[in-house]
């Protein structure tokens, strides 16, 4: 169970940084700071998959980074199974598995070593670690390249290794930041199957994406972030209902339009 309330995060701007014209139009820029995330709230229950949608630069990655404790929010709260991420970051981290499309591996280490390194950093015992990695290798069909160095792997192999690394400590929550962006079709399928597997095991998954077909096939809940504000949060049925004909693309676009018109009214 993940519960997020009124999350906000601003990045200080350098004194000399000049804003471009397009940046000046963005409501999130003030003189001193860029308010990347202004007010994001949503929740995700056990066994649910939540799709995070939004245009580029909307604040999706910042939100997910705050969720995963990499960044500290300025305001708001994040509860992971009752653990306050802000107050007990180390305890929260033990429950989180995080993966993004550009997540790298240590090229000089083998698949096994890459995964084992993070397992050990999560404080796993050697025997349990070996057993768990063996389990994951079977699950993801990775035994063939277990001892190959990451430098010599194909993209698919790398992504499988990255997935195994993200869940080696059996996290209670899995966060994926655009996990399918820039990957080939086969590798995307591996990622999607993996999400399905997590869902079947009752692990909540939050992932951001630009692919609406992934949302349609996987998600129970949808959150749309636009200009740092959660413009929509609800289940997939409610999201579909936003458009007259149940088309997800139209539903998404109608949300953004509503946003723009609301702003114009505000200015007027």
């Amino acid at each position, binding site marked *: 169970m993940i519960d997020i309330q009124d999350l906000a995060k601003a*990045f*200080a701007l350098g004194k000399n940084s000049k804003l471009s014209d397009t940046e000046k139009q963005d409501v999130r820029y003030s003189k001193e700071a860029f308010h990347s995330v202004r007010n994001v709230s949503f929740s995700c229950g056990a066994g649910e998959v939540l799709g995070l949608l939004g245009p580029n630069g909307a604040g999706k990655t910042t939100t997910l*980074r705050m969720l*995963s*404790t*990499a*960044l*500290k929010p300025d305001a708001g709260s994040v509860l992971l199974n009752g653990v306050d991420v802000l107050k007990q970051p*180390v*305890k929260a*981290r*033990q429950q*989180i598995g*995080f993966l*993004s499309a*550009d*997540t*790298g*591996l*240590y*090229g*000089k*280490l083998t698949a096994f*070593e890459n995964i084992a*390194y*993070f397992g*050990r*950093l*999560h*404080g796993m015992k050697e025997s349990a670690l070996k057993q768990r990695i063996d389990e994951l290798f079977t699950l993801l069909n990775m035994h063939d390249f277990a001892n190959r*160095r990451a430098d010599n792997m194909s993209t698919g192999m790398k992504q499988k290794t990255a997935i195994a*690394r*993200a869940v080696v400590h059996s996290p209670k929550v899995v966060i994926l930041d655009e996990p399918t962006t820039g990957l080939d079709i086969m590798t995307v399928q591996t990622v999607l199957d993996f999400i399905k597997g997590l869902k079947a095991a009752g692990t909540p998954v939050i992932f951001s994406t630009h692919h609406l077909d992934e949302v349609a096939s996987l998600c129970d809940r949808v959150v749309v972030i636009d200009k740092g504000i959660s413009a929509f949060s609800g289940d997939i049925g409610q999201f579909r209902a936003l458009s007259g004909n149940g088309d997800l693309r139209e539903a998404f676009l109608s949300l953004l339009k509503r946003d723009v018109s609301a702003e114009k009214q505000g200015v007027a």
Partner: protein
Amino acid sequence: MWQVYFKELLELVRDKKTLIFVILLPIFIFPMLFGIVGSVMAFTANKAKQQEHRYVIVNKEQAPEFAEALFYHKNFKQMEVSATTEAQLIEAIKQDKIDVAVIIPADNSKKQNQLEQVDWKIIYNQSSQYDFMFNYFNEVLQGYTEDLQKRSLKQLDLDERALPAIIKPVKVVKVDSADKRENVGEKIGAILAYALILLCFSGAAYPAVDIGAGEKERGTLETLLICPISRTALVLGKFMTILTTALLTALITVASLGLWGMVIGGLSKTDAVVDIVQSIAVSDLMLMFLLLLPTSAMFAALLLAISIYARTFKEAQNYISPLTIIVLMPLMVAMAPGIELTASTALVPITNIALAIKELMKGTAELSLICLIFASSVAIAAALIAFCVHWFQQEKVLFR
């Protein structure tokens, strides 16, 4: 922390470039370069020593004994040229017909008989680094003048046994109070300190780039940050790795230089090198290592802070190159003649370490100053490590 440390070391060991920089370079390539430069210098010096100098003497009939002595010297060869004036002789030297010309005045023997001083001239190209020719010339001339002096004394009815006392009433013998080690230490110590500190720096620089900026460039930093391990432990693990390679590079270099020195010393049977190596106590070496420890820690912390700030390898390298020059400056100061280790120079970072290593090599180090240097260096290193840890907590550094 140790998990991070061992993993970083494993990665570095598997990297061929690290092996080249940390091990191959100091063990083989540096001694080889030193060896080549040394032997080339020895070879050219030897050649210059053996060289035969072509000469002419103008008016040699005025000093036949001298002309004869020069004729039979193995490093001189008489030539015949028509030139007699100074300008003509210079021209002949420029045209490479002769190497040296001696002009004896036409009234030489007449003046000598009247006990008057005569002026000779020697013309040769004096821009060469080795001036062995003039030494040989002086040898011959000295023998000739001594004979003349004896003859003159006889003419004056003086006992020729009084000659030394008349020519040189006071003879001074120089006795060196510095032992051999102090002399050699002064020369080798400065260069050794320079090489050691620079090697510590370069030994730290390469892995630092990989461990800091590399983590960002590969996209592994974010995953690392959300592991349930404190960022302090993360930094210290990385810091220890860099410190290890820095010290290792310096240690391997010293060991290999020592080893090669022994091998060459053994081959050429010069006991001087062996004597000096043996006169340096193990405790001196331990002190040197102890001084390099905080120095390497300073470098490691500083380089890690730079590297973790940089977004890419390239950016990190761009920051590190000017830093190398900044590190070189205090080393140059320490090598400058006249700079001694005092209570004030002991407080200049890096310079003090270089000076202390020199003193240790010379065997004249004051323990109180060494302690002061160690304490001040540890303080600076601790401050830099604290800064590096603080730096690593900053979001604006990690997510740029």
